[in-house]
């Protein structure tokens, strides 16, 4: 089943004719994602070459508006590759056209734009922004993740970071622990889908047996995740990792959201929360597969 995304999801690409947009469209198509078209205002009626994955893929329709794309293709998902000043508008457009899930890759969207977007587009799930997207291995990939590291399986993965996800997933895959869905929720302070939202979905997914939560310093999403796991996930083992545990206070590290402000967003608080929820926290990514396997064995 996976969460949020499967083989049947019909995906469009907002900003498909841009360099990034086209490059990743081709990669997603090669992975098997059901990309049905793209949107670039003013280029409606033209086509782009999505590569040789299929006859349709080599001649993908471009539309002027998301509404046109949805009307013509029945698209359910969108992935957004537009610069920060236009990203909020792209999300509003997707929402208005009835899109169910939008992946916002864009880094650098003003937090205040996102405050308003998330408050007013509640009928649409937003993944990100400033995220690598999501993949349900063997089914579909909507994002910019390197497809090679993933393997189909029964581990759910949620992460605020892209590269740490690849690092951890690579280890899982090598250890024979394939993944049901991996969601990169994004490194910004205001994101559409949180750990808790993903945990809720994984809780209801019969094809997910265990979950890896890859957090980092800043904010309180990890604390909320720990509380949710304690209350609602007694039967699915979870393992956590927290990036940036050695970071000093007050320094913003790459992600706009990764900053310890005063006594807020500290690793100590997150470690304590996971401990209280009975969730083991790996000191190194390399420990995660073993922790998962021992937990799975306990639950078996």
């Amino acid at each position, binding site marked *: 089943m996976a969460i949020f995304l499967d083989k049947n999801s019909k995906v469009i690409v907002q900003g498909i004719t841009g360099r990034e947009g086209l490059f990743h469209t081709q990669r997603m198509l090669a992975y098997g994602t059901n990309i049905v078209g793209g949107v670039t205002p003013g280029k409606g009626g033209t086509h782009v070459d999505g590569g040789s994955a299929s006859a349709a893929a080599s001649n993908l329709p471009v539309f002027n508006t998301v509404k046109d794309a949805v009307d013509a293709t029945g698209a359910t998902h969108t992935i957004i590759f537009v610069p920060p000043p236009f990203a909020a508008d792209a999300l509003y457009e997707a929402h208005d056209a009835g899109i169910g899930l939008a992946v916002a890759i864009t880094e650098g969207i003003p937090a*205040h734009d996102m405050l308003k977007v998330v408050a007013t587009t509640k009928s649409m799930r937003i993944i990100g922004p400033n995220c690598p997207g999501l993949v349900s291995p063997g089914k579909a990939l909507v994002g910019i993740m390197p497809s090679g590291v993933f393997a189909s399986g029964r581990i759910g993965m949620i992460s605020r970071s892209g590269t740490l996800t690849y690092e951890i997933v690579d280890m899982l895959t090598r250890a024979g622990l394939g993944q049901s869905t991996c969601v990169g929720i994004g490194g910004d302070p205001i994101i559409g889908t949180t750990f808790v939202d993903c945990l809720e979905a994984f809780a209801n997914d019969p094809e997910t047996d265990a979950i890896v939560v890859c957090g980092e310093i800043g904010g309180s999403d990890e604390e909320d995740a720990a509380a949710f796991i304690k209350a609602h996930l007694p039967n699915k083992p979870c393992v956590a990792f927290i990036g940036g545990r050695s970071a000093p206070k007050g320094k913003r590290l790459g992600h706009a959201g990764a900053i310890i402000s005063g006594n807020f967003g500290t690793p100590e608080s997150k470690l304590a929360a996971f401990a209280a929820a009975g969730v083991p926290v790996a000191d190194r990514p390399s420990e995660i597969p073993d922790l998962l396997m021992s937990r799975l064995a306990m639950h078996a």
Partner: protein
Amino acid sequence: MEYQGKELFRRVGIPTPRGVHATSAADTVAFVAANPGSWVLKSQVMMGGRGKAGGIKFADDAAAAKPLADELFGKVLKNEQNPDGEEVRSLLVEEKVQIASEAYASITIDRAAKKPVIIVSSQGGMDVEEVAEHHPEAISKFWIDPAIGFQPFEARQLAFAAKLPVGYHKAFPKILAGLYQMFMEYGANLVEINPLVLTASGDVIASDAKVELDDNGIYKHPDLNAWRNDGPADEDQAAAVAIGLGMSNYAKFADESGEAPKTIGTIANGAGLGMGTMDAIKSAGGGAANFLDIGGGAQAELVKNSYNLVTSDPRVKAMFINIFGGITRGDQVALGIVEALKGDDVRKVPLVIRLTGTNAEEGRKILAEAGFFPVETMNEGAAKAVALANGAK
């Protein structure tokens, strides 16, 4: 800085004390001479605690103002949080108001709630976190629905809940409305009035102003961008931007007592991997001197400049470059590294490269041909870097 925050306050109609922003002692004295009254000379610095550091003075006439202004201009204010200190380059000369009461009001982003939150306290002039700890009943919060925006009832509710003196009540909705307008329009992470003064004559005035802008939103207000570069900028951020990295893609860490010395430079692709690399070094018993996220592309030029930036820190005794080939192919990154470190214009320190992921094999081959022998895992790389920094060969 305060004077900039107050300029924004005035734009949205929040009352501030009468005054002038003076950039020289002469200007300061001239203003006081021309405007009889009691004046406060406030050093314009980024650091907190300027009052205790001797950065605020009072003068009732030009004669009193002259020695004080002469003293303040060029003075380096220091305190525990800012041991290096910050030089005073300008003063805000402000009317000294008769204080009847001091309150606190701020708006910031609550990440978990995904909403702006207004915080009001009847204990003005104090650190709000301390008040929250010791006098929670003096603090009240309201989470604004961004779809609705600020409404006057929110101010009434906050004023009653935080038990603000009645003298504040009439002016309060307009002040919070201005604060919210500023928060949203200028994309602020924090707008703060502390203290919000109720004067003896019954006026409500923002006596101090603090505004932290969201870097991502600054493009909407080019005039504020200029202001931002006005003060002493974060040197790490300036250095990162200078070589084409994002503002927060580089951070240098100070040594801390009780921890291993920061002797290992780090470069990684991706913020998460960058943080993980620092952590791995700590786990291996070492200390990362910096965080550097080189991003997705990693062209040779950027690798070289990043390497030079990290090694410009004399503490750096070894370097750990940690790459997980994702979108970027491992062979491309390897070429970048080889190209970057070819010349003589880099300070050579013992180097550990970890390269894995997409096209890692090809990349490792390229590195080997250039005499670099990359490790396979992050743990291995961290351990080796620590050993090298400690003098191993």
